[in-house]
């Protein structure tokens, strides 16, 4: 597809800015970029290149060339920004944080934004045809549906629900979710929560230095504890142990208590000096991890002796350590 020739324009006070706070910074020295008047990159620039495209696929193609990869959080924010230009309270929540308030001025320009219901079921709107924001004609609209499909989201209802929830979460959490590339599925537990009450936990999560996987686990544990009726203050870390461990101990009290007892017992023993012994949990299984390092073949005899010694110690282990048998 041939890229249309853009026109260099200056930013008007009522410009339609879809400032969704993307992670990457726009290269300095370049003007911003707009597509059919919608500013989609370089939001702080005074000048922008406005591309006029004839259909939604050209819009999507151009947008995707600017942002080949967007996290769910960024896309949700983009959706919120676009939705802020929506026509009615039913389809449009409060203006998205960070979006240009010129949105309100432009609301009159907003075109069709349709979802349908049939037989009592919320049906998914026909993608590519009916979900667009900003103008009836394809040339004036933001083709949200096609954009979502481009980024792998076909289930519009789920996306919309989650995007609106994300809009209510603390800005740091949104940023965290964007950096960690958290997926919609990983964040789906938010659907069960009153976000305002749970917000301190989301803010705490953003403060923690957790990997994506650890973060997803922490979010789920914290959310489950909240749903189980634990006060937010208890869920937030109140001791020196890592937050994830704190959450696990709260959410799995029986298993944690058994593991802790086993761990304490293991730590109290005088194990052979060359061995490394620890109590480990791997999913539903627990056990003793024994590491012997043989630096040369003759160490093997010593290793075998160590194992005998370990065995003698294990014979004195409390029976409950291995579960009630």
């Amino acid at each position: 597809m041939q890229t249309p020739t853009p026109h260099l324009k200056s930013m008007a006070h009522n410009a339609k800015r879809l400032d969704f706070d993307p992670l990457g910074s726009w290269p300095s020295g370049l003007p911003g970029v707009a597509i059919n008047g919608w500013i989609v990159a370089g939001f702080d620039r005074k000048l922008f290149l406005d591309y006029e495209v004839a259909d939604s696929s050209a819009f999507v193609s151009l947008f995707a060339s600017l942002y080949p990869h967007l996290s769910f959080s960024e896309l949700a924010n983009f959706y919120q920004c676009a939705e802020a230009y929506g026509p009615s309270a039913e389809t449009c929540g409060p203006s998205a944080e960070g979006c240009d308030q010129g949105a309100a001025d432009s609301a009159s320009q907003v075109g069709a934004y349709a979802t349908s219901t049939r037989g009592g079921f919320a049906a998914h709107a026909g993608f590519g045809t009916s979900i667009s924001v900003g103008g009836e004609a394809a040339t004036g609209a933001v083709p949200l549906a096609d954009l979502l499909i481009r980024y792998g989201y076909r289930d519009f209802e789920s996306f919309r629900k989650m995007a609106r929830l994300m809009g209510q979460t603390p800005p740091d959490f949104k940023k965290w979710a964007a950096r960690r590339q958290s997926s919609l599925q990983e964040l789906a537990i938010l659907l069960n929560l009153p976000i305002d009450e749970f917000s301190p936990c989301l803010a705490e999560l953003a403060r923690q230095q957790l990997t994506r996987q650890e973060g997803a686990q922490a979010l789920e544990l914290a959310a489950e504890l909240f749903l189980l009726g634990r006060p937010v203050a208890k869920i937030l870390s109140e001791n020196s142990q890592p937050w994830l461990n704190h959450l696990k101990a709260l959410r799995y009290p029986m298993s944690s208590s058994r593991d802790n007892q086993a761990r304490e017992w293991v730590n109290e023993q005088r194990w052979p000096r060359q061995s490394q012994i620890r109590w480990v949990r791997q999913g539903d299984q627990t056990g003793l991890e024994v590491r012997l390092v043989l630096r040369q073949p003759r160490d093997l005899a010593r290793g075998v002796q160590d194992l005998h010694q370990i065995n003698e110690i294990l014979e004195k282990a409390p029976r409950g350590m291995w579960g009630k048998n």
Partner: protein
Amino acid sequence: MGKKLNGTFTPPTLDRIFIEKSCAEETEAREVVDRFRVFYPATLFEVVEREPWFERVPGPLSAGEFERSKKNLLIKKYPGQFFKRCPGASQKNTITCCNYYVLNLGQQCNFNCSYCYLQSYLNAPTLQVYANINRAASELRQAALAQPDLPYRVGTGETIDSLSLDPITLYSRKLIEVFSEFPRWSLEFKTKSDLVDQFLDCEHAGNVVVSWSINPQIVIDHEEFGTASLAARLRAAEKCRQRGFPVAFHMDPLIWFPGWESHYQDLVKNITRRFGPEDLSVISIGSLRFQPSQRHLMRERFGMKESWVTSAEMFPSEGGKFRYDASLRREMLRFVLQEFKSRSGKYKVFFCMETPETWLASYEKFPMKEENLRPFFRPLPSPEGPLGQNEDPP
């Protein structure tokens, strides 16, 4: 077919009944449609060209869609293969499998159990009854004719309760008739209902096992909504025994809750007081397990505070499912096993969907080493070429 019900049967509440157009036109399919018309007002019925909500984006059901799917019935012809291996067979590396085959005559369930694996399995927003029972019967016959002398076990309760709609469909009668031709094969109706009157008068070859998934009443109250009470299930089992039908119980899933030991002990007492080892073809035990993907739906549908399932301490296990901590699992399985064995060593008790390690730790031997259980676990050749296997295990 055409059996009138003697007892009282309250059909489950349905909002709509959709009939696939071809079912409204063909004699075989019309028979089951007409049966539904006896029980439900005409205003609920609608003949449809395509499956309702065909336009929904394919994928897992939302909580709302799952709830509604229980109230919207679709009578259709099943286009695929009815007769399949139990999904356990596809996980032989992680679980010890008991050579079971399944015959699915519908999908979804009008009961509502918090742990139900259908929550991770279904992606159609309707309760479905397959109208082409004659093709299912013919598939069965074809398979049974290929190996009439080997003891294959076939169940109908994998994707739908075997009997909860049976007073309407009367499929049990048809299947009992088919199995009377193959006495070495056995059929299992697995249910949480007490609906057995509709087939008790059938002539059978003693190879139709009627089985109940059972739990203490307190677990039923907490987790198995809309199902028959424990007392009603046991009464129905006694009726079946009186008519010579072999009976089985599945204490599955065992669910942990404070004081679980005494409740499960009472349950075993209750069963063993009423059923001797000779009355029961098998007792299977399995601990709570579910696919990680269904936990969001479970939380949304059943909450966290009220359910012993959603609030349980579950961990990812080998094979991908969430399960209790392995030592707790062993403790629970061993406890129930010992409760049965202490009353009689002749009860045929086995573990369902459990790992070889759990068998060893709890039973102290593999099932092939247990004389009572060997027939269930002995490998059998495929009765009809390579049979399709389900992808999503229970």
